[in-house]
């Protein structure tokens, strides 16, 4: 066993404290079961990325960046731009993450976020086509957790949608339609065409209790987790059950209802913070 994992073992006293609080409807950090920690978004803080955002979810911090480049569309989808989501879990965020090839969790994290964006059709991919079948814009989204205090999935989802909302794509002029040549004008930019804002909600199951937005202490003893993403229409656009334990039917329904109940509040908060929070390279003053 790695020393890191040994140290993260929750003591018997912490466990019994946690369970006795849960019995009274409270969590170890004072929250109610369905409370989300405070959210702070600092947009556009990486000048070299076409879009970026640093998101705080309590003490959890995730940086997402977007790079835009020219690419060839898939043969079977000549009229759609491309996007790819990746996540790098480096030890910067937690001593439990190791360098080396991507871990299963980092791939799961990226794919869960990717699915919510894809299913909600958040990005209008048709508007990313320059020459159908020849040249389209490719959107690369990369997630870098910087500080892991639990629930990296929801923090990453927020960082990604905020980064996409700040993304601008340069103008592409067709110079030779026959040969498929384009000229990119970096100084003329337009916002990335977005049509949805999916928000994800991750629940942890501890004993018989379902908790929204688990902290790292809660993740230490959770049996399993469930992530549900909701689109603008209030539809469910992505689900992921994770870890070894199981959920009962009614637990899934509770989680789903809570997610739907909370989604407008969280979406409004994201939009508001993007509008009024400090942005640009100087936003680093506010971290």
């Amino acid at each position: 066993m790695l020393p890191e994992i040994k140290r993260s073992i929750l003591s018997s006293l912490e466990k019994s404290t946690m369970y006795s609080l849960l019995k009274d409807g409270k969590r170890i950090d004072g929250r109610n079961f369905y409370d989300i920690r405070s959210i702070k978004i600092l947009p556009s803080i990486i000048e070299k990325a076409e879009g970026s955002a640093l998101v705080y979810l309590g003490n959890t911090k995730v940086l997402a960046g977007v790079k835009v480049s020219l690419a060839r569309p898939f043969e079977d989808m000549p009229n759609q731009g491309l996007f790819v989501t990746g996540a790098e879990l480096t030890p910067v965020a937690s001593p439990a993450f190791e360098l080396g090839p991507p871990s299963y969790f980092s791939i799961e994290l990226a794919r869960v976020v990717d699915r919510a964006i894809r299913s909600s059709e958040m990005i209008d991919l048709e508007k990313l086509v320059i020459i159908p079948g020849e040249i389209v814009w490719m959107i690369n989204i990369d997630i870098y957790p910087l500080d892991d205090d639990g629930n990296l999935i929801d923090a990453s989802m927020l960082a990604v949608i905020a980064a996409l909302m700040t993304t601008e794509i340069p103008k592409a002029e067709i110079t030779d339609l026959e040969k498929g040549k384009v000229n990119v004008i970096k100084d003329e930019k337009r916002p990335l065409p977005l049509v949805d804002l999916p928000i994800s909600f991750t629940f942890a199951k501890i004993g018989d209790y379902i908790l929204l937005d688990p902290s790292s202490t809660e993740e230490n003893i959770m049996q399993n987790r469930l992530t549900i993403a909701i689109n603008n229409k209030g539809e469910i656009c992505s689900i992921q059950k994770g870890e070894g334990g199981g959920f009962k039917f009614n637990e899934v329904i509770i989680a789903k209802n809570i997610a739907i109940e909370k989604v407008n509040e969280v979406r409004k908060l994201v939009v508001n913070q993007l509008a009024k929070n400090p942005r640009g390279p100087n936003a680093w003053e506010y971290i």
Partner: protein
Amino acid sequence: MKEIDESKLILIDSNGIRTDGRRWNELRPLRIRVGILDRAEGSALVEMGKTKALATVYGPKEMFPKHMANPDRAILRAAYRMATFSVEERKKPQPSRRELELSKVIKEALEPAIMLHYYPRTVIEVYILILQADGGTRTAAINAASLALADAGIPMKGLVTAVAAGRVGDQVVLDLNDVEDKYGDADLPVAMIPATGEITLLQMDGTMSSDMFERALKLAIEGINIIYERQRDALKRRFLELKEKILGGEFYASRD
């Protein structure tokens, strides 16, 4: 996407002004923040111009696997990585040969400063993530890493401070930005422990005459002394608050 016509590129104009408005011996704007992350034992963010380096430190902690431990001292591990979006063209996430080489020289630049013999059989880990690269990432990385080590309370002979000097035509310049690094004639990154005067990182690419090399090295050391003062200020600012919190008459008396 971005192409530069080298023949038209003027790195220093007739008034002696560089592409970003600096004179030959000026540093880029420097911003330092210490202790910005919760999970890591020590952390620091250093911005030199547009270059941003984030460093975190863990340890000393038990070495794993155990047979890699040194019975006499702690082992230092350092890793340098660049975020995919830190550069103009997206970088692939897999570490490049460059990133691995820099991890090694950064580790060796920090190692002489740390009192590793205090913690036998342990490991101290330093991770650096370049959030944005605009020239001088290894020097920003070293500046951030040594602050993160001090922030973690690890005993050191002194902070390690770094900056590059270089040559553009027949002019020595300080703290090269990305364009000067790519299109200048020589790049000379230097790291040093100002408290003891030891140079702990020294690399160069390009060419310099013997005389110019001496001038460039002197210029780098002048730059290091300025940055060093800023590092000390940033560390003290963070810990003055802590001092207020814990200082009391009983503190010293009751320690024995």
